[in-house]
């Protein structure tokens, strides 16, 4: 299946270009720098165009573009090696052995069981907290919670098993929730409660 037969850009315009904003966001979260993200986006779309005949029309274009973007990023990073914190994943997959009771929620429930404090946190602070996550967690959270991709697509994109995606999501979410909750307490959006008193 190829969209290149008549007008090589026709299918591209319809299926790939609408994801430019999403690819930019993804590139921004990958690189952490707007100018680098812009370079990544340009390279991604150029490569995507050139390999458009390898894409099956009507399938997951966004994931496909994210995959190209990530590959471009990883290759460029290889050149000037600077690894993020390595997340150890040997304990358990998918958080199965972890405590299912989220201590952050236990602390929050007494004062704000609806989670209204999240509405008071400005977008910039949330984005900052996402960007501060270790890369492995950040990618899982961005692809799942921000872009809404299913676990299987995230797994394929990151080239890891679904269990690893779930594990990274579990840890990344908890870390992000803790940071945002602490910030909300600090700002007075929610009053701090002792977790011990709430159980």
């Amino acid at each position, binding site marked *: 299946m190829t969209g290149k037969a008549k007008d090589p850009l026709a299918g591209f315009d319809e299926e790939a270009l609408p994801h430019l904003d999403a690819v930019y966001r993804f590139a921004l979260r990958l690189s952490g720098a707007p100018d680098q993200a812009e370079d990544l986006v340009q390279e991604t779309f150029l490569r995507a165009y050139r390999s458009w005949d390898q894409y099956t029309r009507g399938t997951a274009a966004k994931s496909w573009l994210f995959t190209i973007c990530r590959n471009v990023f990883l290759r460029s990073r290889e050149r000037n090696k600077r690894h993020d914190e390595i997340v150890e994943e040997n304990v358990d997959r998918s958080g199965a052995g972890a405590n299912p009771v989220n201590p952050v929620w236990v602390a929050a429930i007494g004062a704000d069981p609806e989670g209204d404090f999240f509405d008071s946190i400005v977008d910039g602070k949330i984005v900052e907290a996402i960007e501060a996550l270790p890369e492995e967690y950040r990618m899982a959270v961005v692809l799942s919670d921000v872009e809404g991709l299913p*676990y299987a697509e995230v797994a394929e994109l990151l080239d890891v098993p679904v269990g690893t995606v779930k594990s990274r999501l579990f840890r990344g979410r908890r870390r*992000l929730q803790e940071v945002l909750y602490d910030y909300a307490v600090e700002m007075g959006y929610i009053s701090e409660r002792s977790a011990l008193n709430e159980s």
Partner: protein
Amino acid sequence: MSIFDSIKRLFGGAGASDDNGRGPGRVAGTRAAEGAEMISCEQALRLVHDFLDGELGDVPAEQVRRHFEVCGQCYPHLKLESAYREAVRRAAAGQEAPDALKDRVSQLLTEARASD
């Protein structure tokens, strides 16, 4: 559609009361009260992410939904988890690429097409 709308929709099935999730029928710690198909609080909390992500696999969503519907201890965990997702999506999913970048990509593609 917001995550809260999704939850309302999930809870809006046949026979569900329209209490917005906090009706007087809600009870705490219901793990054995609803019969064999009722999952425990621990199971429900372990499944909360898969439930919200629509990734329950073989686990019937109805079982998980039922638990959160009637368990006053677990329901806030679902609400807080949803509020977190709503906030993250609101904050990060609306960010757009700069217009100048869109123009550059468009120009690059035009040049690539011209050289084909």
